[in-house]
């Protein structure tokens, strides 16, 4: 953790869902303990969740089809929800979505709670719906997500390919929040992962504090677009301080 102080840490079991509000300038580190995790993630303005992560706006502003250190995650309102300040993988997917119950059943079998108790086969879409429901959100709020630790590439014809070995044991990615953000996570197998058994590995989460983005911050300077994104985000923080 590049932050100053660790506030909280926990381990997400394989199959587990999670949600929590992160305050502006707090940090969240995700660590892929065994090196083959997929953590599907959605992000919302914690005060006004109608504002949420927007995959196309994030990719267009940074002329990229994937996420890594130095890049930021935009909301649909031109603001930066969080910045990626450290990354051991070099590639995190945001174009290939999450799987649901049908896809999980087709690949891994029924995997019911009745048979497996708490090792049952949870799937990404249902996990997100459960966590969103805790915040008054639902199907209408499931937008294109981020898949941390997953690499999916695109060839000249547009065809997708799974990137083997994208993560490795102990790899981590660290986010610095630029807005008060509701984070919703699902630690469930990616539907393009060629693995044939349901074995989502554990993922460690650490929340800490740290300094805000400096004037020479890598994420702020990586694109002129991001400089403007930070300006709009800082203007919003001032606006919200005024109506607190």
């Amino acid at each position, binding site marked *: 953790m590049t932050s100053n102080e660790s506030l909280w840490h926990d381990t997400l079991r394989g199959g587990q869902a999670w949600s929590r509000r992160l305050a502006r300038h707090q940090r969240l580190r995700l660590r892929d303990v065994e090196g083959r995790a997929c953590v599907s993630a959605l992000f919302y303005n914690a005060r006004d969740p109608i504002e949420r992560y927007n995959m196309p706006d994030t990719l267009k502003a940074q002329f*990229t*089809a994937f996420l890594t250190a130095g890049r930021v995650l935009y909301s649909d309102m031109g603001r930066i929800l969080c910045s990626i300040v450290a990354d051991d993988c070099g590639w995190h997917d945001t174009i290939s979505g999450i799987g649901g119950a049908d896809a999980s059943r087709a690949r891994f079998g029924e995997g019911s709670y009745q048979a497996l108790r708490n090792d049952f086969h949870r799937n990404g879409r249902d996990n997100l719906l459960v966590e969103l429901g805790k915040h008054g959100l639902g199907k209408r709020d499931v*937008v294109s997500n981020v898949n941390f630790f997953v690499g999916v590439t695109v060839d000249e014809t547009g065809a997708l390919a799974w990137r083997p070995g994208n993560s490795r044991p102990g790899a981590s990615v660290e986010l610095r929040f630029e807005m008060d953000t509701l984070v919703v996570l699902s630690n469930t197998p990616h539907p393009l992962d060629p693995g044939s058994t349901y074995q989502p590995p554990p993922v460690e989460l650490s929340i800490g504090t740290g300094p805000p983005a400096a004037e020479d911050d890598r994420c702020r300077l990586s694109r002129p677009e991001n400089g403007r994104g930070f300006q709009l985000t800082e203007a919003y923080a001032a606006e919200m301080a005024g109506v607190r």
Partner: protein
Amino acid sequence: MSSFRMTESRLEPAAAAVDVTLPAGQGWTQELAPGDIFRIVDLEGNQAVDTLFFNGRDIDERYSATETIRAQGNIYLTTGTRLMSSEGRPLLTIVADTCGRHDTVGGACSAESNQVRYALDKQHMHNCRDSFLLALARYGHGMGKRDLPNNINFFMNVPVTPGGELTFADGVSGPGRYVEMRAERDVLVLISNCPQLNNPCNAYNPTPVRLLVWPKV
């Protein structure tokens, strides 16, 4: 799968039940029944048509760019592409296409994203998000900003390189090219005929499109 595949339709415009011309900068909604055929014609060429679809009987189920990409294992849309819902079910299938490639990664322009992408003083410029919001407000049924997931950009070319770079390339469409799709269930269509003037997605000259619907025979 080749990058560009052309497939023509035999349907005659004279037999269409709906035949409207939508100027650039305007929104539009249309309900389709299962089996209806819907065609979008790029009248003057290189015009991005930002489009969303909803299950007409349950608007909580709607078009999903990521489900569509993953279902066909390819980011470009063309003949044969099933336009998938957030529940992983086909809403429509593309049955004809004389353009050959359509985008679903680039999303819709907005006042706020124009500020990020171009300059803070671009907020006043007309954009697709505003056209979507006005069309949904007029359509009613409680629909609004929560009902704007990532859309399709018909006739738009947004190539992704093997290294993961995303670019906005010159249009691959031309005057009179069209894309045609069959509704697989009751569908609500939401369109913004893109007014973007800051990049080449409309060749810096937004133009009208023609929208036709043939009822199921």
